């Protein structure tokens, strides 16, 4: 039932406001003539409605959620509490610096830690998600070439396995996209890359480990090729969880990167956000970094944190939002970083990798085909069900939906696009061996069902609040908001 259907004219949660005199000193022409039609429900109805909606969701707190490329790991409640302290929540974003020192100290230190793990020389925390980080990064690449009056560079190279935000970002920054294929073992095809680079190359965007779940072994060679052609290298840090504390993108030769704090730094995904996508840059791009950035100076022999703005960074690409980014997410990430500490960061990459390789091995033993059987899994890996699809008529989507009935969220399906009938599986380091074993058993059961009762699998899920939805109808007969006639 929609909340609008629960309502009743004139009902509302009356403890929440004091009914007020009408506004008469604003001329009528400016005023609303009819009520908008917001829900008219009591406080209890509201609580019950949203409680009940929440129960129609899978979540990390409820289920194993091995969604590849999304790093669905445990979101520490301690970090949530830290970020929810009234001092942070009630602080206005434009509060004066001398009333913001505690807050800014956290951000400054987070900048330092992110420099440390990424091997970059400066960090800006302002991007509000990975995609905005990408935007900032590619815009900096553009600003760099512009500054050098290197106007011919109109193309961004992107491996074909890349996440959709990469090409979309390049276009938002006014570039054309040129895809570079990957080889059969998942690495970028060096020969093709060599063919592709040239004076038109502004840069290359790359995820490593890639969305194929493998670490590109020739990344340094790639960097050299692009750099020699005068391009810059962007590192999409969405997969940083695989190598946190083990390898630094800066060492691989990247000039700029973003990190998804809502992945690697365990901040909650919130059913689609908020995220945070800080960017890090090497020295070349430092002059272009987006504002604001937190600076530190000594005042009267004490640390004083201050905002670096356009005035301080004259070549900055500018600001990316009205204020300074998703502060609350940054605080959570900071809290998480403090709890992990140095050794904890090392362990994240290690155990994420251990879990992924263990799960890959167990699935192979259970009869599944890995897309890159000869490669190590990074923190994620790809299973292809093209044989099952061909021989049993049960495809990757069917497996995904049936997993829901077993109480597991489905892995990412049909991505990366280049692998047919694939599942991209990422267990993360916070899942226990028992949980992973349970998932393997479920996959094995479904494989058995696919042989014995394929229709049942094809019509899954059977235990969710709804069965498979008619997406075509959804797109054809658009119903995007409720109208009660």
């Amino acid at each position, binding site marked *: 039932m929609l909340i609008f259907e629960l*309502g009743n004219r*004139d009902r509302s949660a009356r403890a929440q406001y004091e009914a*007020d005199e009408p506004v008469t000193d604003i001329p009528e022409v*400016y005023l*609303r003539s009819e*009520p908008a039609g917001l829900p008219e*429900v009591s406080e209890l109805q*509201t609580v019950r*409605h949203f409680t009940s909606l929440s*129960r129609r*969701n899978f979540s990390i*707190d*409820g289920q194993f*959620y091995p969604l590849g490329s999304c790093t669905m790991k445990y979101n520490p409640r301690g970090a949530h509490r830290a970020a929810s302290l009234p001092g*942070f*929540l*009630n*602080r206005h974003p*434009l*509060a*004066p610096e001398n*009333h913001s*020192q505690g807050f800014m100290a956290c951000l400054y230190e987070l900048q*330092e830690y992110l420099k440390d793990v990424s091997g970059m020389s400066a960090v800006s925390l302002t991007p509000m998600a990975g995609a*905005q980080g990408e935007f900032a990064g590619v815009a900096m690449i553009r600003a760099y070439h512009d500054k050098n009056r290197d106007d011919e560079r109109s193309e961004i190279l992107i491996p074909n396995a890349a996440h*959709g*935000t990469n090409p979309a970002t390049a276009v*938002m*920054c006014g570039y054309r996209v040129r895809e570079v294929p990957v080889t059969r073992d998942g690495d970028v095809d060096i020969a093709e890359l060599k063919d592709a680079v040239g004076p038109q190359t502004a840069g290359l965007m790359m995820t490593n480990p890639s969305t194929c779940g493998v670490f590109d*072994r020739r990344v340094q060679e790639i960097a050299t090729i692009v750099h020699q052609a005068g391009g810059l290298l962007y590192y999409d840090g969405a997969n940083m969880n695989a190598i946190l504390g083990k390898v630094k993108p800066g060492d691989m030769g990247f000039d700029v990167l973003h990190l998804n704090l*809502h992945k690697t730094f365990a901040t909650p*995904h919130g*059913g*689609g*956000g*908020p995220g945070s996508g800080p960017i890090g840059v090497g020295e070349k791009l430092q002059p272009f970094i987006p504002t604001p950035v937190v600076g530190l100076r000594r005042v009267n022999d004490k640390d004083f944190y201050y905002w670096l703005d356009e005035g301080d960074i004259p070549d900055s690409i500018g600001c*990316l939002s*009205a*204020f*300074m980014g998703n502060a609350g997410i940054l605080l959570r990430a900071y809290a998480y*970083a403090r*709890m*992990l500490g*140095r050794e904890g*960061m*090392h*362990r994240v990459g290690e*155990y994420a990798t251990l879990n992924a390789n263990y799960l890959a091995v167990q699935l192979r033993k259970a009869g599944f085909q890995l897309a890159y059987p000869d490669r190590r899994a990074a923190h994620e890996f790809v299973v292809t069900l093209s044989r099952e699809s061909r021989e049993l008529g049960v495809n990757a989507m069917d497996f995904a939906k049936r997993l*829901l009935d077993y109480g597991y*969220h489905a892995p990412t399906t049909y991505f990366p696009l280049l692998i047919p009938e694939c599942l991209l599986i990422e267990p993360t380091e*916070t899942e226990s061996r028992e949980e992973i074993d349970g998932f393997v058993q479920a996959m094995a059961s479904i494989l058995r069902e696919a042989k014995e009762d394929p229709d049942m699998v094809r019509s899954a899920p059977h235990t969710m609040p*709804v069965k498979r939805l*008619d997406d075509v*109808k*959804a797109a054809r007969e*658009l*119903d*995007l*908001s*409720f109208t009660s006639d």
Partner: protein
Amino acid sequence: MPFIPHTQEDTKTMLDDIGELSIEALFDEIPEDLRNGQLHATPEGMSEMAMLRLMNERARQDVVQMSFLGAGAYEHHIPGAVWELASRGEFMTAYTPYQAEASQGTLQLIYEFQTMMTRLTAMDVSNASVYEGATALAEAMLMAVRANKKSRSKRLLCAGNVHPRYLQTCRTIITNQQIDIQEIPWRQDRGLLDHGYLDGMQGEDFAGLVIASPNFFGGLEDVDYLTDWAHEQGMLVIGVVNPTALGILRPPGEWGDAGADIVVGDGQPLGIPVASGGPYLGYMCCRAAIVRQMPGRIVGRTVDLDGKEGFTLTLQAREQHIRRARATSNICTNQGLLVTAASIYMSLLGDQGLYSVAARCHHNTALLAKKVLALGNVSLRFPEPFFHEVVFELPKPAADVLAGMSRQQILGGYDLGLFDNRLENCLLVNVTETKTGGDIEQFVQSLAHALE
């Protein structure tokens, strides 16, 4: 190990199954010389207890002053139920609802949010949020350029009295695509857009016109005139509106003869704390005709195999994960949890509640203005009407006055000298429903004191 469940035995068994002796071996494909993740700037780990103690000290270090500062982020009462519900693990720790059957909660919630936003703005369609208000405006500009079939222009007219950081953000974002923004000056005497300037633009080709009402000064524009004028010129109209204001103000869908085409703003006032700057949520609504140019996620209602009602992400062919380089935007992660909070907030308030909140904000602002004017040496910089922000002309620089008020633990407003040096003596003050008569009195006395 913090957050990692592996016992030594687990690790050993797992490595045995993999056929390796150490975790390190799993990294053997990574070139040796790269495998140096040595961290130097990162301190040792601490327990949750020690971390919370540190964060508590940091949070307490920053005295939160009684605030009359708005300028894009507004302090409102947030009903206790809002975040008690929004923080439920099932909302907070879910991903984007890609598996619709396992995410009906989030999906229905977004559908309800879309409905609330379209009703509030009187528009046809809403998306599921973008980052925040400024980026919403940037996306709206890009959308207008794509959607305006009558115009081939890559130029937009934009109110000069929109939030200055909104304009800056738009510049950062859209200039990469060689799109130009032309600012419409505001009248020094009224703070409103200069219609005369528009007369000069007659006949030029622009893809769209951006109107903010209430504008950055809190003033209300002649939205009917502006909307009709733009439509006559073949432009799309983009409205930038504070959603609280829509509790009492005429919605942009009813501006002029045809209504605005795209409406954006920051949803922060709808149950989201000012929170040092975020996360907030950018909302975006538009007319049905141009929905295919909308960026970001959209949820549709449909049926399942059994004909039962259900909800799913729809029109995904606009989005980067399907359309890649040809997507309407690169946005992926949006502000889902804030959408949840805003939906709960709007449900609790309903029409009457939002009206009352907006009316109380306005009454409080008007009351404060009356008392401030009674001081004698302060005047209104711009004439009424205003919504819940007002500009005072002071006898000395606003920066000095703010410093004085700060010593009395009052955050007195926004120094408009930062925005425009002609407004050096101007203070932008916001009063919401959270302020009592006593608070307003305290503001006035503190101001008087700072002016001495």
